[in-house]
């Protein structure tokens, strides 16, 4: 999901995706494995890709979300937001603030 989410705004190449994951989350990824996942996402029709000669001497393969990919990501995001809200509500009594209050009561 994190990989798909990193492609939400624009197309990116492998290293950019890794940097997006590194910078925005604690989701560490073995670098070579990223391409295996991207390959699978492509087989599933969730992303599309294209080789671009960026003038760096090494062509880069850019990935972007397909329509199906965007729909799937939206569904996953809805699922995740609901899930974390439910879990948050369940864990609320465990938070420090509430615990202190319960001591005084």
């Amino acid at each position, binding site marked *: *999901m*994190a*990989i*798909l989410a990193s492609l939400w705004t624009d197309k990116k190449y*492998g*290293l950019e995706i890794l940097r997006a994951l590194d910078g925005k989350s604690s*989701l*560490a*990824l*073995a*670098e*070579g*494995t990223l*391409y*295996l*996942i991207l*390959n*699978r*996402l492509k*087989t*599933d029709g*969730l992303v599309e890709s294209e*080789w671009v000669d960026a003038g*760096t*001497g*090494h*062509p*880069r*393969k850019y990935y972007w979300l397909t329509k199906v990919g965007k*729909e*799937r990501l*939206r*569904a*996953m995001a809805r*699922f*995740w937001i609901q899930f974390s809200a439910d879990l948050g509500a369940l864990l609320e009594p465990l938070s420090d603030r509430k615990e202190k209050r319960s001591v005084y009561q």
Partner: protein
Amino acid sequence: MSTNSVTESVDEYCKRLWKALHKLPTPEREDFIREVRSHIWERVEAEPEVTADVLTKIFREVGEPKELASEYRTQAMLHEATRSDAPWVLRPWVLLRATLRWGVTSLAGLVAFLVTVIGYGCTVVFYLCALLKPVFPTHIGLWLAAQHTLSLGYWNGRLSGAEVYGMSVRPPISFVLLGTLGPTGGPIRELLGYWLIPIGFLCSALFFLATSMFTRWFIARFNRKKKWTASLFHASSIPQSS
């Protein structure tokens, strides 16, 4: 390091990756290598100084070729197993092959493999018993022997040293599949008679369906990667958008 020796090292790494990925179709393999090569060069060019240590670190972070290839192969097989369009008679083979490979590297995979073997093993025993009951009516059956041993399969016809080849359960925990639990003495009684034929075929079909469905579900649910929150990455394990 000079540019030439960096190029040589990158080429050597790519060559090892190329060899490790020998089971992949050539276009897919070429594309993957090209992508990894491009990735390594991006990393190299981002370094202020490229020493042998830096290069080794980059290669390590990209991944050991054999491990990458193995991971790729496992994922491809599991993917094929959960989405297989293979004829239903070949599905056990696809699922067994994929879970065996998965089982070598993870506990969840081992569980999946064992469950699949037991499930399809039961399918085979039920099916063969139903099929062979008319051929060996006095030898094939569901048998209750001494020590509360319940066995399904071929009885060797002896009362002392009775053995049933098929599957057996003996409380509390003995279970044997595709074999015999060992000789038992004393009376042996057949429980189902010719009812074994319809019941055997029915149970065989039920075990087949249950094993196929369970294993596919188990793979989709527990096929987790090592270094990240797997289910979040598994687009195919999240329900389709309505």
